[in-house]
Protein backbone atom coordinates (compact mmCIF):
# COMPACT_ATOMS: atom_id res chain seq x y z
CA UNK A 1 0.00 0.00 0.00
CA UNK A 2 1.28 3.46 -0.81
CA UNK A 3 1.65 5.83 2.07
CA UNK A 4 -1.07 8.38 2.60
CA UNK A 5 0.14 11.95 2.11
CA UNK A 6 -0.89 14.53 4.69
CA UNK A 7 0.14 18.11 3.90
CA UNK A 8 -0.05 20.87 6.51
CA UNK A 9 0.36 24.52 5.53
CA UNK A 10 1.63 26.68 8.40
CA UNK A 11 3.93 25.83 11.30
CA UNK A 12 2.43 27.98 14.04
CA UNK A 13 0.23 26.80 16.88
CA UNK A 14 -2.38 25.01 14.75
CA UNK A 15 -0.07 23.41 12.17
CA UNK A 16 2.36 22.18 14.81
CA UNK A 17 -0.36 20.65 17.00
CA UNK A 18 -2.02 19.07 13.96
CA UNK A 19 1.27 17.59 12.71
CA UNK A 20 2.30 16.17 16.08
CA UNK A 21 -1.13 14.78 16.90
CA UNK A 22 -1.51 13.22 13.44
CA UNK A 23 1.94 11.70 13.77
CA UNK A 24 0.72 9.87 16.88
CA UNK A 25 -2.38 8.64 15.05
CA UNK A 26 -0.53 7.14 12.04
CA UNK A 27 2.44 4.79 11.89
CA UNK A 28 5.40 6.07 9.87
CA UNK A 29 4.75 3.28 7.31
CA UNK A 30 1.17 4.34 6.93
CA UNK A 31 1.35 8.09 6.27
CA UNK A 32 3.85 10.77 5.36
CA UNK A 33 3.31 14.13 7.01
CA UNK A 34 4.64 17.28 5.35
CA UNK A 35 4.55 20.75 6.88
CA UNK A 36 5.48 23.93 5.00
CA UNK A 37 6.13 27.41 6.33
CA UNK A 38 7.92 30.41 4.84
CA UNK A 39 10.39 30.72 7.75
CA UNK A 40 11.70 28.75 10.70
CA UNK A 41 10.65 31.19 13.43
CA UNK A 42 7.81 30.10 15.71
CA UNK A 43 6.76 33.10 17.83
CA UNK A 44 4.97 32.64 21.16
CA UNK A 45 2.51 35.36 20.23
CA UNK A 46 0.82 35.86 23.64
CA UNK A 47 4.21 37.06 24.89
CA UNK A 48 4.27 40.04 22.50
CA UNK A 49 1.83 41.91 24.78
CA UNK A 50 4.52 42.16 27.46
CA UNK A 51 7.37 43.35 25.21
CA UNK A 52 6.35 47.07 25.05
CA UNK A 53 6.46 47.24 28.86
CA UNK A 54 9.90 45.67 29.16
CA UNK A 55 8.40 42.54 30.74
CA UNK A 56 9.55 40.25 27.92
CA UNK A 57 12.15 40.33 25.17
CA UNK A 58 10.90 39.59 21.67
CA UNK A 59 13.80 37.35 20.66
CA UNK A 60 13.22 35.11 23.68
CA UNK A 61 9.70 34.38 22.45
CA UNK A 62 11.01 32.78 19.25
CA UNK A 63 12.06 29.16 18.72
CA UNK A 64 12.70 27.21 15.50
CA UNK A 65 9.47 25.84 14.03
CA UNK A 66 11.24 22.70 12.86
CA UNK A 67 12.28 21.82 16.41
CA UNK A 68 8.69 21.82 17.68
CA UNK A 69 7.78 19.06 15.22
CA UNK A 70 7.94 15.29 15.73
CA UNK A 71 11.06 13.99 13.96
CA UNK A 72 8.93 12.06 11.47
CA UNK A 73 7.27 15.22 10.16
CA UNK A 74 8.98 16.60 7.05
CA UNK A 75 9.51 20.36 7.31
CA UNK A 76 9.70 22.40 4.08
CA UNK A 77 10.95 25.93 4.52
CA UNK A 78 9.13 27.69 1.70
CA UNK A 79 6.17 29.98 1.23
CA UNK A 80 3.12 28.53 -0.52
CA UNK A 81 2.40 29.52 -4.10
CA UNK A 82 -1.10 28.06 -4.37
CA UNK A 83 -3.38 25.13 -3.69
CA UNK A 84 -4.97 23.25 -6.59
CA UNK A 85 -8.12 21.84 -5.02
CA UNK A 86 -9.13 19.85 -8.09
CA UNK A 87 -5.69 18.41 -8.67
CA UNK A 88 -5.27 17.82 -4.90
CA UNK A 89 -1.81 19.32 -4.93
CA UNK A 90 0.05 22.17 -3.23
CA UNK A 91 2.65 24.18 -5.10
CA UNK A 92 5.34 25.72 -2.92
CA UNK A 93 7.07 28.98 -3.86
CA UNK A 94 10.36 27.11 -4.31
CA UNK A 95 8.70 25.02 -7.03
CA UNK A 96 8.16 21.81 -5.06
CA UNK A 97 4.82 20.04 -5.60
CA UNK A 98 3.14 18.30 -2.68
CA UNK A 99 0.21 16.07 -3.71
CA UNK A 100 -2.10 15.30 -0.80
CA UNK A 101 -4.71 12.86 0.38
CA UNK A 102 -5.61 15.25 3.17
CA UNK A 103 -4.70 18.93 3.44
CA UNK A 104 -4.67 21.05 6.61
CA UNK A 105 -4.77 24.83 6.30
CA UNK A 106 -3.12 26.38 9.35
CA UNK A 107 -1.57 29.52 7.94
CA UNK A 108 -3.12 31.94 10.42
CA UNK A 109 -3.99 35.56 9.79
CA UNK A 110 -1.92 38.25 8.13
CA UNK A 111 -1.73 41.89 9.27
CA UNK A 112 -2.86 44.35 6.58
CA UNK A 113 -1.78 47.83 7.76
CA UNK A 114 -1.67 48.91 4.09
CA UNK A 115 -5.48 48.70 3.94
CA UNK A 116 -5.94 51.67 6.28
CA UNK A 117 -5.26 55.08 4.77
CA UNK A 118 -2.20 56.75 6.27
CA UNK A 119 -1.34 53.96 8.69
CA UNK A 120 1.99 53.18 7.02
CA UNK A 121 2.72 56.90 6.57
CA UNK A 122 5.59 58.88 8.08
CA UNK A 123 4.44 58.20 11.67
CA UNK A 124 4.72 54.40 11.42
CA UNK A 125 7.03 53.16 14.16
CA UNK A 126 7.60 56.83 15.15
CA UNK A 127 4.37 57.67 16.96
CA UNK A 128 2.12 54.99 15.45
CA UNK A 129 2.83 51.42 16.53
CA UNK A 130 1.45 47.93 16.68
CA UNK A 131 2.56 45.31 19.21
CA UNK A 132 1.27 42.48 16.98
CA UNK A 133 4.73 41.89 15.48
CA UNK A 134 8.05 41.32 17.26
CA UNK A 135 9.58 44.37 15.53
CA UNK A 136 6.58 46.58 16.32
CA UNK A 137 6.45 45.52 19.97
CA UNK A 138 10.18 46.19 20.38
CA UNK A 139 9.97 49.62 18.72
CA UNK A 140 6.97 50.48 20.93
CA UNK A 141 9.00 49.60 24.02
CA UNK A 142 11.45 52.36 23.12
CA UNK A 143 8.64 54.87 22.53
CA UNK A 144 6.94 54.03 25.83
CA UNK A 145 10.20 54.48 27.74
CA UNK A 146 10.41 57.99 26.30
CA UNK A 147 6.73 58.79 26.88
CA UNK A 148 6.54 61.42 29.60
CA UNK A 149 2.85 62.24 29.39
CA UNK A 150 0.34 63.09 26.69
CA UNK A 151 -2.52 61.34 24.96
CA UNK A 152 -2.14 57.63 24.33
CA UNK A 153 -4.82 56.12 22.10
CA UNK A 154 -5.27 52.35 21.77
CA UNK A 155 -7.50 51.11 18.94
CA UNK A 156 -8.18 48.27 16.57
CA UNK A 157 -9.41 48.96 13.07
CA UNK A 158 -11.99 46.21 12.65
CA UNK A 159 -12.81 42.63 13.59
CA UNK A 160 -11.70 39.96 13.17
CA UNK A 161 -8.38 40.31 15.00
CA UNK A 162 -6.19 37.79 16.75
CA UNK A 163 -6.81 37.69 20.50
CA UNK A 164 -9.68 40.21 20.68
CA UNK A 165 -8.89 40.96 24.35
CA UNK A 166 -5.28 42.00 23.63
CA UNK A 167 -6.01 45.69 22.87
CA UNK A 168 -7.87 45.94 26.20
CA UNK A 169 -5.02 44.21 28.00
CA UNK A 170 -2.64 46.69 26.42
CA UNK A 171 -4.70 49.60 27.76
CA UNK A 172 -4.81 48.09 31.27
CA UNK A 173 -1.06 47.44 31.27
CA UNK A 174 -0.34 50.93 29.90
CA UNK A 175 -2.26 52.39 32.85
CA UNK A 176 -0.13 50.32 35.26
CA UNK A 177 3.12 51.14 33.43
CA UNK A 178 2.50 54.89 33.34
CA UNK A 179 1.60 54.87 37.07
CA UNK A 180 4.78 52.97 37.92
CA UNK A 181 6.75 55.58 36.01
CA UNK A 182 4.95 58.44 37.75
CA UNK A 183 3.59 60.01 34.55
CA UNK A 184 -0.01 58.75 34.66
CA UNK A 185 -1.34 62.07 36.02
CA UNK A 186 0.09 63.84 32.97
CA UNK A 187 -1.40 61.25 30.58
CA UNK A 188 -4.77 60.57 29.03
CA UNK A 189 -5.60 57.02 28.01
CA UNK A 190 -8.24 56.33 25.36
CA UNK A 191 -9.54 52.96 24.15
CA UNK A 192 -11.31 53.23 20.77
CA UNK A 193 -13.21 50.25 19.36
CA UNK A 194 -15.40 49.65 16.29
CA UNK A 195 -17.71 47.54 18.49
CA UNK A 196 -20.66 49.05 20.34
CA UNK A 197 -19.23 47.96 23.72
CA UNK A 198 -15.89 47.21 25.43
CA UNK A 199 -15.91 43.61 24.17
CA UNK A 200 -17.82 41.28 21.86
CA UNK A 201 -19.98 39.58 24.53
CA UNK A 202 -22.44 41.44 26.79
CA UNK A 203 -21.67 40.22 30.34
CA UNK A 204 -17.89 40.40 29.85
CA UNK A 205 -18.34 43.81 28.17
CA UNK A 206 -20.02 45.20 31.27
CA UNK A 207 -17.23 43.89 33.55
CA UNK A 208 -14.50 45.18 31.26
CA UNK A 209 -16.17 48.58 30.81
CA UNK A 210 -16.25 49.08 34.58
CA UNK A 211 -12.58 48.11 34.78
CA UNK A 212 -11.77 50.72 32.10
CA UNK A 213 -13.73 53.34 34.05
CA UNK A 214 -12.04 52.39 37.34
CA UNK A 215 -8.65 52.88 35.69
CA UNK A 216 -9.72 56.20 34.16
CA UNK A 217 -9.41 54.94 30.58
CA UNK A 218 -11.86 56.66 28.23
CA UNK A 219 -13.95 54.23 26.16
CA UNK A 220 -14.91 55.35 22.63
CA UNK A 221 -17.28 52.92 20.89
CA UNK A 222 -18.40 52.42 17.26
CA UNK A 223 -15.20 54.10 16.09
CA UNK A 224 -14.51 52.72 12.62
CA UNK A 225 -11.06 53.99 11.76
CA UNK A 226 -10.96 55.51 8.28
CA UNK A 227 -7.67 57.38 8.29
CA UNK A 228 -4.53 57.89 10.34
CA UNK A 229 -2.74 61.24 10.15
CA UNK A 230 0.85 61.02 11.36
CA UNK A 231 0.44 64.54 12.73
CA UNK A 232 -1.58 62.88 15.50
CA UNK A 233 -5.20 62.52 14.41
CA UNK A 234 -7.25 59.37 13.98
CA UNK A 235 -10.43 59.92 11.94
CA UNK A 236 -13.41 57.60 11.77
CA UNK A 237 -15.43 56.96 8.61
CA UNK A 238 -18.31 58.94 10.11
CA UNK A 239 -16.09 61.96 10.60
CA UNK A 240 -15.13 61.84 14.30
CA UNK A 241 -11.54 62.76 15.20
CA UNK A 242 -9.33 61.48 18.05
CA UNK A 243 -6.09 63.34 18.77
CA UNK A 244 -3.09 61.33 19.90
CA UNK A 245 0.52 61.79 20.88
CA UNK A 246 1.08 58.04 20.70
CA UNK A 247 -1.15 55.60 18.82
CA UNK A 248 -1.09 51.87 19.51
CA UNK A 249 -3.17 50.19 16.84
CA UNK A 250 -4.10 46.72 15.69
CA UNK A 251 -4.27 46.70 11.88
CA UNK A 252 -6.88 44.86 9.81
CA UNK A 253 -6.40 41.11 9.47
CA UNK A 254 -6.86 38.89 6.44
CA UNK A 255 -5.97 35.31 5.59
CA UNK A 256 -2.72 34.16 3.98
CA UNK A 257 -2.22 35.54 0.47
CA UNK A 258 -1.97 32.09 -1.15
CA UNK A 259 -5.50 31.40 0.15
CA UNK A 260 -6.73 34.37 -1.86
CA UNK A 261 -4.77 33.16 -4.92
CA UNK A 262 -6.16 29.61 -4.76
CA UNK A 263 -9.50 29.27 -6.51
CA UNK A 264 -12.33 28.15 -4.28
CA UNK A 265 -10.35 28.14 -1.04
CA UNK A 266 -11.03 31.45 0.75
CA UNK A 267 -13.71 34.07 1.37
CA UNK A 268 -13.47 37.80 0.56
CA UNK A 269 -11.03 38.37 3.42
CA UNK A 270 -8.89 35.31 2.67
CA UNK A 271 -10.23 33.16 5.50
CA UNK A 272 -11.24 29.56 4.80
CA UNK A 273 -14.99 28.85 5.14
CA UNK A 274 -14.93 25.95 7.59
CA UNK A 275 -17.54 23.76 9.28
CA UNK A 276 -17.65 25.04 12.85
CA UNK A 277 -17.96 21.63 14.49
CA UNK A 278 -16.00 19.23 12.23
CA UNK A 279 -13.38 21.73 10.92
CA UNK A 280 -13.75 20.40 7.38
CA UNK A 281 -13.39 23.16 4.78
CA UNK A 282 -16.64 23.97 2.98
CA UNK A 283 -17.11 22.16 -0.30
CA UNK A 284 -13.95 20.04 -0.24
CA UNK A 285 -13.97 16.71 1.52
CA UNK A 286 -10.25 16.29 2.03
CA UNK A 287 -9.36 19.80 3.21
CA UNK A 288 -9.49 20.81 6.87
CA UNK A 289 -8.64 24.10 8.57
CA UNK A 290 -8.00 25.38 12.06
CA UNK A 291 -6.90 28.40 14.04
CA UNK A 292 -6.81 31.97 12.79
CA UNK A 293 -7.03 30.81 9.14
CA UNK A 294 -10.71 29.81 9.39
CA UNK A 295 -13.95 31.79 9.42
CA UNK A 296 -15.50 29.87 12.36
CA UNK A 297 -17.45 32.23 14.62
CA UNK A 298 -15.27 32.20 17.71
CA UNK A 299 -12.20 34.15 18.82
CA UNK A 300 -8.98 33.94 16.86
CA UNK A 301 -6.92 32.74 19.81
CA UNK A 302 -4.32 30.16 20.78
CA UNK A 303 -6.72 28.36 23.12
CA UNK A 304 -9.24 27.97 20.30
CA UNK A 305 -6.55 26.60 17.99
CA UNK A 306 -5.38 24.21 20.70
CA UNK A 307 -8.89 22.79 21.26
CA UNK A 308 -9.52 22.64 17.52
CA UNK A 309 -6.23 20.79 17.01
CA UNK A 310 -7.42 17.77 18.93
CA UNK A 311 -10.73 17.64 17.04
CA UNK A 312 -9.12 18.27 13.65
CA UNK A 313 -6.46 15.56 13.96
CA UNK A 314 -9.09 12.98 14.92
CA UNK A 315 -11.31 14.03 12.00
CA UNK A 316 -8.47 13.90 9.46
CA UNK A 317 -7.77 10.37 10.66
CA UNK A 318 -11.47 9.45 10.40
CA UNK A 319 -11.61 10.90 6.89
CA UNK A 320 -8.55 8.95 5.71
CA UNK A 321 -9.98 5.76 7.20
CA UNK A 322 -13.34 6.33 5.49
CA UNK A 323 -15.25 6.81 8.75
CA UNK A 324 -17.81 9.59 9.41
CA UNK A 325 -16.49 12.81 10.92
CA UNK A 326 -17.32 13.80 14.51
CA UNK A 327 -18.93 17.18 15.26
CA UNK A 328 -16.45 17.56 18.08
CA UNK A 329 -15.74 21.29 18.43
CA UNK A 330 -18.12 23.45 20.49
CA UNK A 331 -16.37 26.81 20.02
CA UNK A 332 -14.55 26.57 23.37
CA UNK A 333 -12.21 29.51 24.06
CA UNK A 334 -10.29 30.25 27.24
CA UNK A 335 -8.43 33.53 27.66
CA UNK A 336 -6.49 35.16 30.48
CA UNK A 337 -6.95 38.93 30.40
CA UNK A 338 -4.06 40.87 31.98
CA UNK A 339 -5.39 43.82 33.95
CA UNK A 340 -2.16 45.29 35.35
CA UNK A 341 -0.70 45.32 38.87
CA UNK A 342 0.09 41.59 38.64
CA UNK A 343 -3.52 40.60 38.24
CA UNK A 344 -5.57 39.04 35.46
CA UNK A 345 -9.07 37.83 34.87
CA UNK A 346 -10.11 34.70 33.05
CA UNK A 347 -12.89 34.17 30.54
CA UNK A 348 -14.11 30.77 29.32
CA UNK A 349 -16.86 30.40 26.72
CA UNK A 350 -18.08 28.63 23.56
CA UNK A 351 -20.44 29.13 20.61
CA UNK A 352 -23.53 29.02 22.83
CA UNK A 353 -22.35 30.24 26.23
CA UNK A 354 -20.94 33.72 26.64
CA UNK A 355 -18.29 34.43 29.34
CA UNK A 356 -19.96 34.64 32.78
CA UNK A 357 -18.64 34.85 36.37
CA UNK A 358 -17.88 31.75 38.43
CA UNK A 359 -14.87 29.45 38.59
CA UNK A 360 -12.89 27.35 36.11
CA UNK A 361 -12.95 24.42 35.52
CA UNK A 362 -14.97 23.43 38.63
CA UNK A 363 -16.92 25.31 41.34
CA UNK A 364 -13.51 25.52 43.04
CA UNK A 365 -10.83 26.82 40.70
CA UNK A 366 -9.61 29.95 38.96
CA UNK A 367 -12.03 32.86 39.35
CA UNK A 368 -13.84 33.82 36.12
CA UNK A 369 -14.39 37.46 35.13
CA UNK A 370 -12.73 38.64 38.34
CA UNK A 371 -9.26 40.08 38.80
CA UNK A 372 -6.89 37.85 40.74
CA UNK A 373 -3.19 37.24 41.19
CA UNK A 374 -3.73 33.54 40.59
CA UNK A 375 -4.95 34.23 37.05
CA UNK A 376 -1.88 36.38 36.38
CA UNK A 377 0.37 33.51 37.49
CA UNK A 378 -1.66 31.20 35.27
CA UNK A 379 -1.01 33.44 32.29
CA UNK A 380 2.75 33.56 32.98
CA UNK A 381 2.98 29.81 33.54
CA UNK A 382 1.23 29.14 30.27
CA UNK A 383 4.31 29.87 28.18
CA UNK A 384 6.00 26.77 29.57
CA UNK A 385 2.88 24.71 29.01
CA UNK A 386 2.71 25.99 25.42
CA UNK A 387 6.15 24.79 24.36
CA UNK A 388 6.24 21.59 26.42
CA UNK A 389 2.70 20.18 26.41
CA UNK A 390 0.43 22.04 24.01
CA UNK A 391 2.59 21.96 20.87
CA UNK A 392 3.74 18.34 21.29
CA UNK A 393 0.05 17.40 21.63
CA UNK A 394 0.25 16.08 25.19
CA UNK A 395 -2.99 16.11 27.17
CA UNK A 396 -3.28 19.01 29.62
CA UNK A 397 -5.35 18.10 32.72
CA UNK A 398 -8.80 19.77 32.87
CA UNK A 399 -8.22 21.72 29.67
CA UNK A 400 -9.92 20.09 26.67
CA UNK A 401 -12.08 20.90 23.66
CA UNK A 402 -15.42 20.74 25.53
CA UNK A 403 -16.22 23.82 27.61
CA UNK A 404 -16.86 22.90 31.28
CA UNK A 405 -20.23 24.19 32.55
CA UNK A 406 -19.69 23.34 36.23
CA UNK A 407 -18.67 26.39 38.22
CA UNK A 408 -20.23 28.91 35.84
CA UNK A 409 -23.00 31.33 36.87
CA UNK A 410 -24.91 30.53 33.67
CA UNK A 411 -28.03 32.36 34.88
CA UNK A 412 -26.11 35.64 34.36
CA UNK A 413 -25.88 35.13 30.58
CA UNK A 414 -27.96 37.59 28.59
Amino acid sequence: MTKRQIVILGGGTGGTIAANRLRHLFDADDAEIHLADRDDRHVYQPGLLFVPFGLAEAERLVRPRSQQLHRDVRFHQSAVESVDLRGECVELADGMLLPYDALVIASGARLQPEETEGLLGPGWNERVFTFYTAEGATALHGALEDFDGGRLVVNFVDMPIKCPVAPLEFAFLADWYLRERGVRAKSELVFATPLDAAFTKPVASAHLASLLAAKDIELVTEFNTGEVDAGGVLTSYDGRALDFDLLVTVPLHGGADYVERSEGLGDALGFVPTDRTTLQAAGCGNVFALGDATDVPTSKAGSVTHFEGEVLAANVARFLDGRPLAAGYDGHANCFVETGFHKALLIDFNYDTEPVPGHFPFPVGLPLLRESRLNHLGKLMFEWVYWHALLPGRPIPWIGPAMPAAGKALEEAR
Partner: protein
Amino acid sequence: MSTIERVEVDAEGFLIHPEQWTEDLGREIASENGIEELTERHWLVVRFMRDRYLTTGTAPSIRALGKESGVPIKELYELFPKGPAKLAAKIGGIPKPKGCI
Protein backbone atom coordinates in the same frame (compact mmCIF):
# COMPACT_ATOMS: atom_id res chain seq x y z
CA MET B 1 -51.76 53.30 8.20
CA SER B 2 -48.33 53.05 6.59
CA THR B 3 -46.90 49.71 5.48
CA ILE B 4 -44.27 49.69 8.19
CA GLU B 5 -46.88 49.57 10.96
CA ARG B 6 -48.25 46.31 9.56
CA VAL B 7 -45.01 44.30 9.74
CA GLU B 8 -43.26 42.95 12.81
CA VAL B 9 -39.95 44.59 13.75
CA ASP B 10 -37.56 44.02 16.66
CA ALA B 11 -36.70 46.57 19.35
CA GLU B 12 -34.22 48.28 17.01
CA GLY B 13 -36.51 48.35 13.99
CA PHE B 14 -35.17 45.36 12.02
CA LEU B 15 -37.75 43.22 10.23
CA ILE B 16 -38.42 39.91 11.97
CA HIS B 17 -39.78 38.24 8.82
CA PRO B 18 -37.60 39.16 5.79
CA GLU B 19 -40.25 37.75 3.45
CA GLN B 20 -42.62 40.59 4.40
CA TRP B 21 -40.27 43.09 2.78
CA THR B 22 -41.13 45.12 -0.33
CA GLU B 23 -39.24 47.89 -2.11
CA ASP B 24 -41.82 50.41 -0.90
CA LEU B 25 -41.26 49.28 2.65
CA GLY B 26 -37.50 49.76 2.08
CA ARG B 27 -38.16 53.35 0.98
CA GLU B 28 -40.29 53.97 4.06
CA ILE B 29 -37.64 52.60 6.44
CA ALA B 30 -34.98 54.68 4.65
CA SER B 31 -36.92 57.88 5.05
CA GLU B 32 -37.57 57.15 8.75
CA ASN B 33 -33.79 56.84 9.11
CA GLY B 34 -32.99 60.12 7.43
CA ILE B 35 -32.42 58.94 3.85
CA GLU B 36 -35.02 60.79 1.77
CA GLU B 37 -34.15 59.31 -1.59
CA LEU B 38 -32.66 55.92 -2.35
CA THR B 39 -30.35 56.28 -5.37
CA GLU B 40 -29.17 53.43 -7.62
CA ARG B 41 -26.01 53.21 -5.46
CA HIS B 42 -28.13 52.80 -2.33
CA TRP B 43 -30.16 50.07 -4.01
CA LEU B 44 -27.03 48.27 -5.19
CA VAL B 45 -25.86 47.98 -1.58
CA VAL B 46 -29.28 47.12 -0.14
CA ARG B 47 -29.89 44.39 -2.74
CA PHE B 48 -26.38 43.00 -2.25
CA MET B 49 -26.95 42.74 1.53
CA ARG B 50 -30.37 41.18 1.09
CA ASP B 51 -29.29 38.66 -1.56
CA ARG B 52 -26.32 37.64 0.50
CA TYR B 53 -28.49 37.15 3.57
CA LEU B 54 -31.10 35.14 1.69
CA THR B 55 -28.52 32.85 0.06
CA THR B 56 -26.06 32.34 2.94
CA GLY B 57 -28.09 33.09 6.07
CA THR B 58 -25.74 35.85 7.23
CA ALA B 59 -25.23 39.42 6.10
CA PRO B 60 -21.69 40.55 5.27
CA SER B 61 -19.63 42.73 7.63
CA ILE B 62 -18.75 46.25 6.52
CA ARG B 63 -15.32 45.09 5.31
CA ALA B 64 -16.67 42.24 3.21
CA LEU B 65 -19.38 44.57 1.92
CA GLY B 66 -16.72 47.07 0.81
CA LYS B 67 -14.71 44.37 -0.93
CA GLU B 68 -17.51 42.46 -2.60
CA SER B 69 -20.22 44.99 -3.46
CA GLY B 70 -17.81 47.17 -5.43
CA VAL B 71 -18.78 50.21 -3.33
CA PRO B 72 -15.75 51.48 -1.34
CA ILE B 73 -16.19 51.80 2.45
CA LYS B 74 -15.82 55.58 2.29
CA GLU B 75 -18.74 55.82 -0.12
CA LEU B 76 -20.76 53.37 1.97
CA TYR B 77 -20.52 55.83 4.85
CA GLU B 78 -21.60 58.67 2.58
CA LEU B 79 -24.61 56.68 1.41
CA PHE B 80 -25.55 55.32 4.84
CA PRO B 81 -24.13 57.64 7.50
CA LYS B 82 -23.29 56.12 10.93
CA GLY B 83 -23.45 52.40 10.19
CA PRO B 84 -23.71 51.28 6.55
CA ALA B 85 -24.03 47.53 7.20
CA LYS B 86 -26.67 48.02 9.91
CA LEU B 87 -28.67 50.62 8.02
CA ALA B 88 -28.58 48.79 4.68
CA ALA B 89 -29.72 45.62 6.49
CA LYS B 90 -32.60 47.52 8.09
CA ILE B 91 -33.70 49.05 4.78
CA GLY B 92 -33.31 45.66 3.06
CA GLY B 93 -35.58 43.99 5.59
CA ILE B 94 -33.10 41.50 7.02
CA PRO B 95 -31.99 41.00 10.65
CA LYS B 96 -29.24 43.12 12.22
CA PRO B 97 -25.84 41.79 11.09
CA LYS B 98 -24.21 39.96 13.97
CA GLY B 99 -20.95 41.58 14.97
CA CYS B 100 -17.83 39.58 14.37
CA ILE B 101 -16.44 37.68 17.32
